[in-house]
């Protein structure tokens, strides 16, 4: 019991003194997850609207494929990315394997289906009259999509936060494509098992606390979004 307590005390010490290693790893995790999440937002908002508001052959199939990909194991995505990016693979010459860049790419592949699916379900929650009204008011397709996204803003925010959560908490993909290289591709989730294995409980615990704290912040953010309108103006457009 005292060993646990000691580890906890050291972990707190590492956090309070802003230990360079902890800060660096946490910052890298956040940066990679945020980048991949941002790219996903740029992809999923227009794409989600296009899929939801258009009728086309194979739409049902596409929707069920997206849903299936929700539960795509992170290691399976990792496997695909490694095969594509390894030296002799089709995109190998770029030399991206075991870099933060490929981790971002991998996370984009991992998060897109979830965010896209949630985006579509967010849009299906709004009244069809919204897009018709926008269209009748003279909106182009893109303008109408913007109105609809704005109407579904809380569900859209939820989609983004959940996507970010999946990106920052996954382990398998980061390990496989990033390689857990110290000072380069080591993130919170890859460092924790390593340090635990090495027996460095204080560091593992400190990193774990950071991870839980991020999750906590995400939830707080979500709660605040749903109770304040401050974000709204920032996100789509300001009232002139």
């Amino acid at each position: 019991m005292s060993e646990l307590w000691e580890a906890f005390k050291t972990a707190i010490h590492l956090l309070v003194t802003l230990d360079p290693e902890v800060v660096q790893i946490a910052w890298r995790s956040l940066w990679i997850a945020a980048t991949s999440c941002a790219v996903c937002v740029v992809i999923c908002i227009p794409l989600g609207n296009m899929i939801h508001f258009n009728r086309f052959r194979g739409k049902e199939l596409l929707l069920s494929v997206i849903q299936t990909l929700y539960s795509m194991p992170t290691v399976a995505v990792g496997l695909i990315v490694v095969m594509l990016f390894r030296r002799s693979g089709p995109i190998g010459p770029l030399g991206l394997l075991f870099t933060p860049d490929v981790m971002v790419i991998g996370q984009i592949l991992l998060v897109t289906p979830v965010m896209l699916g949630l985006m579509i379900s967010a849009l299906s929650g709004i009244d069809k009259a919204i897009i018709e009204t926008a269209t009748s008011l003279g909106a182009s397709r893109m303008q109408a999509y913007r109105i609809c996204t704005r109407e579904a803003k809380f569900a859209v925010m939820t989609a983004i936060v959940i996507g970010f959560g999946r990106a920052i908490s996954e382990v398998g993909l980061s390990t496989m494509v990033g390689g857990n290289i110290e000072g380069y591709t080591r993130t919170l989730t890859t460092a924790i098992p390593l340090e635990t294995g090495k027996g460095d409980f204080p560091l593992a615990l400190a990193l774990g606390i950071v991870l839980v704290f991020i999750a906590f912040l995400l939830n707080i953010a979500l709660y605040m979004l749903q109770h304040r309108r401050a974000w709204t103006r920032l996100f789509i457009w300001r009232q002139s």
Partner: protein
Amino acid sequence: MAPIIETKGLGQAYERHQVLKDINLKIERGDFLALIGPSGAGKTTIIRLLDLIETPSAGQVFFDGIDVTRSSKIRLNARRRMALVSGKTRLKARRRMAFVQQKPTVFDMSVFANVACGLKFRHENKQDIRDKVERVLELVGMSDYRNRNARTLSGGEMQRVAIARALVTDPEVLFLDEPTANLDPASVAKIEGILARIISERKSALLMTTHDMAQGQRLAGKIGVLINGEILQIGTPSEIFFSPASMQVAEFVGVENILPGTVAGKENELAIINVNGVEIQTITDLAQGENVHVMIRPEDITFTRTRDTSSARNVFEGRINKIIPLGPLTRIEIDCGMPLLGVITTRSASEMELTTGSKLFASFKATAIHVIKRA
């Protein structure tokens, strides 16, 4: 100049259910057409087709002479040889129109932002947007609400926001779908007032649907009667109300006495029509021997206790079958060889001491009767 909107053989079907059939409309700038008809007749569908929200299953829609029926299809156009109607052409046409829906949908933003939407879509500059929105909010009496979230408004207020939102873009064609349905009388009066002002001020074309005949009569210059997906008659309000072209139109516009008969005799324009053995004098172009329907509006029948020697050519004696009080008015059904339905004020009904079975004279002028051919 081509009419602002023209349709040729327009039809719409949803999963084999025919909603509209062969609609041929021509709307000129400055026209105000009211479409009246029972619920489910297809009134909203017509507007949705003309506003280019839906695409029809048959026929064509022309906006300012250009075929805008459907996008991304190559269509032959007589004047322009071949015209590719892109989604952009439809968007451009749509941006010259505005549509006030029956159940207005407002966006989850302030009243001001709601009204500003159409202008933003058209990329107008901020200053213009501010000026135009303020002006139109003034017009509909919603200036004090500009910062309220539109979702928190009452039905009548939302309807005014929807009207403001439509007017702010200065549309060449304005569609109003039952603009006062489900509103309280005070809101109806307010909105009709706004509409009357728009009508007097604008040169744009207006198309309104309503199931309230009286409203169509009050506001519109022309009325179209839409029943079961077909426009059965288009004309001035008095043509529609006093000379309905068919049984269905007559029934819808409140002609409650529709009696089958035969033209028994003719002297110039004056004709005698035999209805169930009773001879009615009227004016008609139809020839002797024709089978006809005789239509008399209940308001045109006068009831008296004694044989009145007024100018009315038709005076019949009968007995009261039914007395139905309807507030200030009372409906009287009498049998005078043929059934007749009329209205008198409740006050005179009580002064005349009318009771079921009592004797009464019904009279109406020869000119108050409308005669149509019976198939």
